[in-house]
């Protein structure tokens, strides 16, 4: 069937011809698309204006630093206490990422198991919901008593907060494969494993990544909240304890410094998960495709 009279068939037919989109390469400044710059500069300008206003207010009104420190003092404190704060930052980040990874592993595994067996889903899903709706602050003391090891307790608390969005989103994604494609897989007598591997998992990817974005922030919140509840001290403490400690000692600039590190971590996690989502979906998913119009 090599000499079919079709070699000239396409793309000559009317509508087909102009179908292939042309991706124009845009001019870049410092590696960033020229059109992206206003989106970067505008919030920066707002930020600088707000910080200046803050600093001026504190100085002109003579507000004491144990009530509200100015941004310059906070920056100095961050620099001066970087030794202690960086250790705490690493501890909080370690718990956050360990919890996030555990949430991904457990969430995705459970989602796959649930979609293979309706009965398992029906029996276990309510408990996942209970775990989700119970405030972590309320169960953290119990977990700390039962587990003993404080780092493991914090990890479990952060995991409880983070895993549900991944579980529920991945279940939704695994069940959202195109019905006709499922029929097609049946026609070709695909095994369960093949249907999972080639159809359900790829179809679930955008949903999973949406869950991951939410869970990234939640893991950080979980790690911080749990440490507040645990209230443990010592050299191996996370950022939450530094905030508590600064509160007791009225070292408000240092409290702000720790707060800023938590916020920056949250922002970094958000950008990291968004970047991963972009890398995974840029070729095909509506959410990641750049459009001209």
């Amino acid at each position, binding site marked *: 069937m090599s000499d079919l009279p079709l070699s000239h*068939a396409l793309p000559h037919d009317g509508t087909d011809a102009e179908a292939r989109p042309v991706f124009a390469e845009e001019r870049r400044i410092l590696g960033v698309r020229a059109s992206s710059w206003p989106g970067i500069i505008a919030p920066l300008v707002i930020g600088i204006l707000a910080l200046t206003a803050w600093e001026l207010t504190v100085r002109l009104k003579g507000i004491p630093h144990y009530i509200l420190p100015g941004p310059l003092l906070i920056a100095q404190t961050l620099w001066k206490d970087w030794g202690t704060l960086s250790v705490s930052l690493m501890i909080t980040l370690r718990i956050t990422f360990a919890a996030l990874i555990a949430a991904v592993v457990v969430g995705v595994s459970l989602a796959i198991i649930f979609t293979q067996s309706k009965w398992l889903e029906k029996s276990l899903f309510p408990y996942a919901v209970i775990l989700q709706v119970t405030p972590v602050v309320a169960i953290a003391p119990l977990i700390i008593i039962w587990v003993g090891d404080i780092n493991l307790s914090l990890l479990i608390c952060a995991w409880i907060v983070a895993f549900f969005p991944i579980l529920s989103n991945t279940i939704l994604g695994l069940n959202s494969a195109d019905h006709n494609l499922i029929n097609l897989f049946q026609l070709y007598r695909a095994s369960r494993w093949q249907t999972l591997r080639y159809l359900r998992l*790829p179809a679930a990817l955008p949903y999973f990544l949406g869950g991951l974005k939410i869970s990234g922030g939640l893991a950080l919140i979980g790690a911080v909240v749990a440490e507040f509840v645990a209230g443990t001290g010592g050299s191996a403490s996370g950022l939450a304890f530094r905030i508590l400690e600064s509160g007791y000692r009225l070292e408000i600039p240092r409290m702000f410094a720790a707060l800023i590190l938590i916020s920056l971590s949250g922002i970094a996690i958000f950008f990291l998960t968004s970047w991963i989502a972009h890398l995974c979906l840029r070729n095909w998913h509506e959410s990641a495709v750049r459009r001209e119009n």
Partner: protein
Amino acid sequence: MTTAVGATARSLVSIRNVSKQFANGTVAIRGVNLDLRDGEFVSLLGPSGCGKSTLLRIIAGLGAPSAGTVDWPTSSHDASGEAHPDLGFVFQDPTLMPWANALKNTMLPLTLAGVGKAEAEARSAEMLALVGLKGFEKSYPRELSGGMKMRVSIARALVTHPKILLMDEPFAALDEITRHKLNDDLLALWWQNRFTAVFVTHSVFESVYLSQRIVVMAARPGRVMADLRSEAPYPRDALFRTSADYAHLCRAASGTLREAIAA
């Protein structure tokens, strides 16, 4: 055009007294008898709701009939006696995997059958070239037009060289120019490869242009009204659309369809 009586060539599929009633009580088709012969091009023509898609899905094995049998006398059967016909299926929508490019989409049946990657890629690339998509192997579905996506869908259905190609109103959503082009290319593929083609459509003109045989169905309940034969020779091209033969066939099919709708 004559009414087909009895089986001349050997039957590929033998449909006997097939009925389908859905769980909500709707009777989609009732008492359908049909023999599909090796290598013929058959259209199932009827108004919407006549159960032509349901019948096609039953032939494909997607959903068992409520009553009656579908036999594949010449196909292989497994130990439990279930037939495993080689078939390809084209849905009304292209039904492509958006995360996979045209080549990967075309490869799917081969991948599922455990064919090695290199061989699967080579065969899929060859098939894509045959449907006129050479150079678009790496394109994702979102980068392709409706007509091109349908071509990928046809390539995927034909990549296993099935004995029978089942098509469920595949070109209904396309504009007329693209549809005519795809009709011609489909006929060329069929003419060269001589698989059995079953084409569901609600267009009299499309069914007459393509088929050797037009099975006209009526609705509520879905049933076969007439089994028309067309002796017009292949290959057919745009000239056929202006021929007296074509006009005559269209008139006959339209008349039967009108009776089917009135019945």
